[in-house]
């Protein structure tokens, strides 16, 4: 239930998130002036928070997609399997997000 809702919620978050990629590329196309404004927004605490949540949405939605691929083969529908998958989805999404941000901050 919760993970199904989260799959949709993160999907819609990513839908909105594509605007940020568009904003970044369009600003760069216009030059360093507009790009500087975008950098300032992305580097602000609220920008970083939004980007962090988007990273999580991306990984959570990605792993949720694998769950759907498994279900498409007709497997993984038992009660234990569904709960196990939901837990793996939640933990995996958070873990990948932290790894990506750790790599981003340290390297």
């Amino acid at each position, binding site marked *: 239930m919760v993970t199904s809702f989260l799959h949709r919620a993160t*999907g819609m978050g990513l839908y909105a998130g594509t605007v940020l990629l568009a904003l970044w590329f369009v600003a760069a196309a216009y030059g360093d002036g507009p790009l500087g404004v975008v950098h300032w927004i992305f580097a602000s605490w609220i920008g970083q928070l939004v980007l962090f949540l988007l990273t999580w949405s991306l990984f959570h939605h990605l792993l949720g*997609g694998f769950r759907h691929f498994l279900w498409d083969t007709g497997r993984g529908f038992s009660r234990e399997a569904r709960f196990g998958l939901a837990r793996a989805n939640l933990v995996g999404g958070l873990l990948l997000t932290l790894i990506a941000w750790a790599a981003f901050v340290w390297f």
Partner: protein
Amino acid sequence: MAIPEKTIANPTTRYGAARSSSWRFIVQRATGALNVAFTVFLIWLVVRLASADAISMGDLLANPIVAMVTGLMIISTAIHMQIGMREVIEDYVHDDKLNRLCLLLNTLVAAVIALATLAALAKLVFWG
């Protein structure tokens, strides 16, 4: 036209467009699988270009492989998000007129975002 609840609850009845619904089912999975690879690429691209100036962005994106993968990523993502949001609208917006309006707006928004990003990419690739 509203679909009566009896029809929806019965899996043997047919309603909606079987052909285009099956097509969307397949495309959503195909673009989803592609997007797994594009996610790895996107993480690399963002880490590589974070706080880079316009010249360095143009330099990296002008690489033919990077340019092509970025372009395909934008298209695949736009299609995937259009179908995904369409499903949500189909599930929650029941008023017929509003439903049509939402579906139309969804397609327009996905197209505008994709075209704007592609145009900016083309500018960076061909004119630096």
